[in-house]
């Protein structure tokens, strides 16, 4: 399987006059677990047809933020909007436009690839016949059509990730969240997945928020949000963040911003 072609059209193609509405807007969001503050006044936007990298160490608050955006946790303070829909006030409309790939695997290992996709489609109210058509098409595009009836358990880590991304796109969202999707994958599988997601941005105008702690996954043209100990330390186009930090590359910029020690392998 070489570079997988990305997947279906989003619900509606973005229109020029909608560019002012962010795909995702995080506005003054704070969250605490008892006395421990996991997020402190976090604000940033993800634009449609853009790739935004959310860079932070483990424990920075990335997963908490994802839990808030996906309404797994209630919003304690601040506001999260998806294409203008407040996740607290109209979660249905907001979640309809959102696709998510969580960091831990969330597939049913004992069910087949198609069964996993059909279940996800049902959760979005997509009729069985439509779901079957979309599933077959998606499996074809990620090069797993011949495995449609196999159990997910028999797939490799990279194949499972590709399936999860395909699943997240099944209901044709316009915003895609991925929480460290390449963790544990080999170099080839990582490259495939990154290229697949970047194609979604350029060809289909999907807004992507990609949480990572790996510098080499970020490109100069990306938007960057640096999250550290629950706070946003810097945000904006990567080149600007690097320049403003007085650094030559994102690695150095990140270390200057956070005071962190660098780790081998290009990781934060």
């Amino acid at each position, binding site marked *: 399987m070489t570079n997988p072609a990305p997947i279906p059209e989003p619900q509606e193609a973005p229109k020029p006059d909608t560019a002012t509405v962010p795909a995702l807007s995080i506005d003054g969001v704070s969250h605490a677990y008892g006395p421990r503050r996991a997020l402190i006044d976090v604000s940033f936007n993800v634009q449609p047809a853009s790739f935004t990298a959310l860079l932070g160490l483990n424990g920075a608050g990335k997963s908490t933020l994802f839990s808030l955006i996906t309404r797994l946790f209630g919003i*304690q303070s601040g506001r999260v909007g998806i294409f203008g829909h407040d996740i607290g006030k109209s*979660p249905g409309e907001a979640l309809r436009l959102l696709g998510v790939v*969580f960091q831990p695997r969330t597939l*049913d290992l004992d*069910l087949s690839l198609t069964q996993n996709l059909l279940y996800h489609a049902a959760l979005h109210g997509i009729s069985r016949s439509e779901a079957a058509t979309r599933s077959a098409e998606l499996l074809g595009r990620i090069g797993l059509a011949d495995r449609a009836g196999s159990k997910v358990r028999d797939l490799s880590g990279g194949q499972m990730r590709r399936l999860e991304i395909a699943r997240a796109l099944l209901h044709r969202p316009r915003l895609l969240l991925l929480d460290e999707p390449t963790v544990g994958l080999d170099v080839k599988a990582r490259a495939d997945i990154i290229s697949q997601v970047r194609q979604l941005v350029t060809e289909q105008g999907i807004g992507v928020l990609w949480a990572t702690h790996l510098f080499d996954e970020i490109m100069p043209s990306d938007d960057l949000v640096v999250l550290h100990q629950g706070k946003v330390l810097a945000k904006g186009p990567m080149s600007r963040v690097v320049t403003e930090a007085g650094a030559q590359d994102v690695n150095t910029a990140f270390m200057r911003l956070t005071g962190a020690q660098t780790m081998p392998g290009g990781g934060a």
Partner: protein
Amino acid sequence: MSSITTRDTPRGFSFAEYMTCLTGIVWREGLRFLHQRERFVSALVRPLVWLFIFAAGFRQVLGISIIPPYETYILYEVYIAPGLMAMIQLFNGMQSSLSMVYDREMGNMRTLLVSPLPRGFLLFCKLLAGTAVSLLQVYAFLLIAWFWDITPPSQGYLTVLPALILSGLMLGSLGMLISSGIKQLENFAGVMNFVIFPMFFASSALYPLWRVQEGSPYLYYLCEANPFTHAVELIRFALYGQINWISLAVVGACTIVFMIGAIWAYDPSRGLARRGPAGGEG
């Protein structure tokens, strides 16, 4: 911005979308159940041990007088069969609800909860799916029990179905309410000791309540107030084509109260938010 307002006007969800979601959740639960044969076997072994061993041992000890819905003297095995059917549902309800609460940050609950449909509806579907699985277990038990001379009237197999659906929903939502609300009950052993065993023994599952009343009036009142007693009696009467109206009212009311409470307590902005961050990191 006007075009945005027009385009993004909330369109809500159609009845067909709700039904697609419901059938999808039940279908998946059924598929998973078929893949977990050991779960099926262990769900059956428990009541069968009670039926084959406990009931046989107690047959001579415990005389059962003629009480409704029975019209003749019955063997002890026949008496406890409805209690064991309810026990299957009790274990199934507690087990599946506990996993719904404690696995909420794991795979399948996360997948479920990012569905755009209302969360209350998703949880209801999940409870209904758990009940559907318990029905498969109960009917498998009834099939084996039939060979053990527990032979209710044939229409009883049909008339007991609505009773089982209601009692399954009641026990599932009770399990969800308890696991969401009581932080200390963090594992199944705790639920067994503090919920399942007291509910099961302080009920009419193993002995008729008039016998309990002879021994201890207080225990009798406790048994009468136990919703599980009414689930057992609802099933017992329905299995013989009759309706125990008091039990129906109690089980119906408890189902509504427990389900509303369970859905309320499950809301992460309430009790569960204190449990900590999702996944391994903050």
